């Protein structure tokens, strides 16, 4: 029997600080790294399954109408073709994160161009692909539907509305005001590993090897989509080649593979090709955001407003939560916020790389730069002056918050004091500018379970259906278990990505390491307790290191203590009252130097620094890597990244890696990251907060603010491609 640990009170004992194995926090390599870089880690579509057939999905050629496969019989007769399937259960779009049930289903009506409306199964991948491309799809009774927010029906999101004090009066009476509207485009996760699933039926039981982030939900979503009991489904995802939100919910290829495998009576693999990843997974919503700031003569905010328009497919409830950090980042008594959702027939919107703050904080931080410029104040000082004492809306205290320290330390490391004035520094044809922005992201603890086994041989095994999407889960969970049980890192085996193991929080929302890590911590704590009981000492007096227990001035090996027993414990954490009692978030600051070409408007980031505080850092290397990745995405958001839609039918025009411009190495200069020492007792018993997404939440603004500093051009329509820069020069 295991009891559920609810996080109801701050964990002030800080037990990890007492451990002596020296693993938690250390910059250890990922243990699976060598497998990955030598091609030995098996990704979803790489499993060699006997007698496997291949499915390739077919795309709707427009955004509306009844789908008719007019040459279905001809395609079915093509060489190698086993089946042409248009089953009612095929998904219209992927499930949202944590949906836990099937998303909208049905392949007979197109809702967006690129929707996957059939799957063709053949003996070989090449045959399947050729046959799929040979399907003639017509759309009958197609209607004219809105494919841009400008022409779409708009639904106000009442639950997101905030009206505190009187912003209009504050705007009228303020010494300084900013009222500016920004736009950000849609983004694609486009992970390196395209979405892929292999389905194998064993009688009534389905094994699905897939590329997914949150297996306990995905299993239920898959079962619900197929109309079978979740107990019949086992999902395996030991390695995931990047997700960035696009693998949070069950996606069309998994359901298609399961249906196809059933129909042809063989295992079936369905992999999306890159074009389909762009067209039929998830996009981040495009946004239009109006920011209003009212400040007194000293730069203290007396009011702020944030009004957003985002979009999604009809029937989807997800609305890019861009207001999330605006609620707590800055003080200001008079506050107004609202959100509208436009219903457009483009691919589905969902979570992409820090949904909400990634574009919400970025835009807000651009507006803060405009205010600093107007006042003539150091942008760092403007932010320092507006750090609220407590949550400005709920009045709750913050948990831990080294926001001011991040601003100050980041500024010092970067050399912010030497920043040039607007259009002041030039090197040949290059205009040089500095910019900064704040970082903020909400922190969440999610229910998670893990089983830990301690063996008499002095090894341990951690088992959970948690995933590692390239973020470092294998490393971190091993470090926590090793520290708590006093074992070298190599003596801890971590087994992940299998729904037959205890269900975890999954990888998403930056909560993976802290939530799943807490479950491992709790299981280890229970093992320590049992060891202490056997030794008849207090757990507090037990020191574990290198497979030996030290207590009462004596040392004994684990084999000696355990005899032939293993100790197996389950850790199970749930969020509790600390999630409500305080405002939990992570903070930081970015600093960037750019060079803008005076003739062509091309912007090159010369250097960039981020200082972040996210509670206890569990692995300094993987945490830093997450921040580097976030800042790199920030460079993309600022300068290059944009899903381009055809204005007539709403299809993704730039659906390949050549034209969807994520930053390449040459775009990314030396990036530096500082992680501040912090403990957040309210977050969880490890005092760790999420850091996976913090590095992107505002990063782009530092770059656009630097472009302004270099050129005097304020680009309010992300990304700042050269055409927008030269238009203002």
């Amino acid at each position, binding site marked *: 029997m295991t009891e559920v640990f609810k996080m109801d009170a701050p964990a002030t004992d800080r037990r990890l600080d007492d451990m002596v194995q020296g693993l938690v926090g250390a910059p250890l390599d990922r243990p699976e790294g060598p497998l990955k870089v030598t091609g030995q880690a098996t990704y979803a579509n790489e499993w060699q399954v006997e007698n496997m057939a291949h499915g390739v999905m077919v795309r709707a050629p427009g955004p509306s109408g009844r789908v008719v496969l007019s040459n279905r019989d001809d395609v079915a007769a093509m060489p190698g073709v086993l089946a042409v399937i248009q089953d009612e259960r095929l998904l219209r779009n992927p499930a949202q994160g944590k949906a836990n049930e099937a998303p909208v289903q049905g392949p007979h009506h197109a809702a967006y161009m690129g929707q996957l409306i059939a799957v063709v199964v053949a003996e070989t991948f090449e045959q399947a692909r050729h046959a799929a*491309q040979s399907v003639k799809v017509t759309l009958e009774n197609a209607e004219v539907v809105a494919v841009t927010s400008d022409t779409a029906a708009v639904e106000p999101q009442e639950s997101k509305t905030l009206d505190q004090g009187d912003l209009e009066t504050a705007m009228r009476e303020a010494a300084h005001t900013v009222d500016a509207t920004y736009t950000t485009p849609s983004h694609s996760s486009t992970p390196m590993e395209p979405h892929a699933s292999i389905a194998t039926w064993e009688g009534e039981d389905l094994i699905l090897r897939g590329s997914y982030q949150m297996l306990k939900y995905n299993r239920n979503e898959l079962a619900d989509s197929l109309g079978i009991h979740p107990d019949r489904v086992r999902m395996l995802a030991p390695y995931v080649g990047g997700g960035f939100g696009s693998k949070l919910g069950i996606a069309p290829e998994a359901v298609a593979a399961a249906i196809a495998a059933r129909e042809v009576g063989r295992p079936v693999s369905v992999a999306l090709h890159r074009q389909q990843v762009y067209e039929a997974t998830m996009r981040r919503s495009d946004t239009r955001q109006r920011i209003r700031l009212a400040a007194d003569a000293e730069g203290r905010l007396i009011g702020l407003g944030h009004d957003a328009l985002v979009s999604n497919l009809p029937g989807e409830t997800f609305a890019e939560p861009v207001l999330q950090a605006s609620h707590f980042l800055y003080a200001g008594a008079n506050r107004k916020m609202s959100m509208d959702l436009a219903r457009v027939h483009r691919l589905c919107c969902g979570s992409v790389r820090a949904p909400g703050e990634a574009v919400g904080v970025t835009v807000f931080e651009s507006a803060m730069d405009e205010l600093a410029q107007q006042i003539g104040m150091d942008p760092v000082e403007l932010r320092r002056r507006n750090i609220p004492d407590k949550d400005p809306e709920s009045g709750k205290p913050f948990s831990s918050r080294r926001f001011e320290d991040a601003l100050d330390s980041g500024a010092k490391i970067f050399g912010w004091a030497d920043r040039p004035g607007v259009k002041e520094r030039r090197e040949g044809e290059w205009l040089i500018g500095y910019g900064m922005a704040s970082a903020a992201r909400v922190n969440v603890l999610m229910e998670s379970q893990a089983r830990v086994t301690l063996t008499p041989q002095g090894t341990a095994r951690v088992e959970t259906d948690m995933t590692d999407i390239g973020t470092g889960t294998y490393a971190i969970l091993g470090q926590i278990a090793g520290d708590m049980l006093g074992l070298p890192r190599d003596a801890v085996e971590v087994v992940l990505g299998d729904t037959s193991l205890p269900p975890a929080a999954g990888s998403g929302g930056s909560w993976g390491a802290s939530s799943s890590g807490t479950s491992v911590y709790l299981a280890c704590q229970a093992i320590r307790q049992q060891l202490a009981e056997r030794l008849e000492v207090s757990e507090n007096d037990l020191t574990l290191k290198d497979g030996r227990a030290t207590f009462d001035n004596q040392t004994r090996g684990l084999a000696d203590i355990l005899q032939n027993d293993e100790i197996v414990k389950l850790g199970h954490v749930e969020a509790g009252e600390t999630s409500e009692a305080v405002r939990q978030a992570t903070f930081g600051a970015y600093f960037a130097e750019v060079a803008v070409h005076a003739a*062509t408007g091309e912007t090159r980031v010369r250097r960039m620094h981020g200082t972040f505080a996210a509670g206890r850092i569990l692995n300094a290397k993987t945490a830093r890597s997450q921040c580097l990745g976030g800042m790199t995405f920030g460079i993309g958001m600022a300068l290059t990244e944009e899903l*381009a*839609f055809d*204005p007539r039918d709403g299809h993704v025009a730039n659906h390949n890696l050549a034209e969807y*411009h994520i930053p390449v*190495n040459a775009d990314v200069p030396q990036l530096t990251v500082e992680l501040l020492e912090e403990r957040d007792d309210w977050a969880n018993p490890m005092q760790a907060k999420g850091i996976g997404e913090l590095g992107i939440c505002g990063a782009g603004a530092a770059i656009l603010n630097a472009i302004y500093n270099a050129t005097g051009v304020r680009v309010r329509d992300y990304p700042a491609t050269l055409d927008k820069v030269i238009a203002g020069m």
Partner: protein
Amino acid sequence: MRPFDYSRASSTADAAQQAAGGGTFIAGGTNLLDLMKLEVMAPDKLIDINRLDLSQIEETSDGGLRIGALVSNSDLANDTRVRRDWPVLSRALLAGASGQLRNKATTGGNLLQRTRCLYFYDRATPCNKRDPGSGCAAREGFNRILAVLGTSEHCIATHPSDMAVAMRVLDAEVETLKQDGETRRLTLDALYLLPGDHPERETVLEPGELITAVVLPAPIKDAQQTYRKVRDRASYAFALVSVAGIVGLKDGRISHADLAFGGLAPKPWRNAEVEELLIGETPSETLFDKAADILLAEAQGYGANDFKIPLARRTLVSVLNELTKEASA
């Protein structure tokens, strides 16, 4: 990918013979294979020319270079003679694609790569180049990367090559072998066709005609060379605008001015009037602006690519400033 026949050519004559029955040559395949997977191109037969003896770079009797059609973009960019005497070519090559692609891509294949127009690659949309007579989805679509010069009402595609722009400014000529054994030499201007009423026809090459080499004339003395590529990210992106320039100064006046442009047109673009205007004149912003006026007099944007017109002006002026600054200092 549609099923196709594959054969390997043992000699240039054999390649031409094999192509007699209709077939498509494949060398690096860096563009062709992608197009075949998408079934935008679906040749019945591929003739692999990779084993032909066309990988040499030889000096010609008049001081130029004959570059075999199979010389890889990497090898050509790194050839010490090219780096020393035709640096614009080396720079253009290195500005294109990625290291991996340059290792596979060949000189002949680079010249014949297809447009990167997004609608050409998407079979669910009309495209006169892919399906003659079906219409052009790009004119009113997402056309950021497409042409503003030399277009027709049927097609606004650009030629994506960087190398070809440098070849054009260097007055390079291609050597070809026809099926009947006849050889000919073509300037790049003569090689490429503008879209007009037949955007599906991109070159004057006859079916089965094989490019065997590209010949560079002797290097130009007393002139500066550069290749400026402006693009949406620092690497691995096609040119929005590129300028290949060879400019010489004598006694403070422009004595030599060769200019070719990429990213603007369906072929590497050159305008003799621009060059004539510059020759004999003293470098100045006013002069360079006038050159841009001539270059862009006929330019037409289609919405998302309107910016290319001011961008081309700014880039041309910047390149001319660069090429006339050092020598005049």
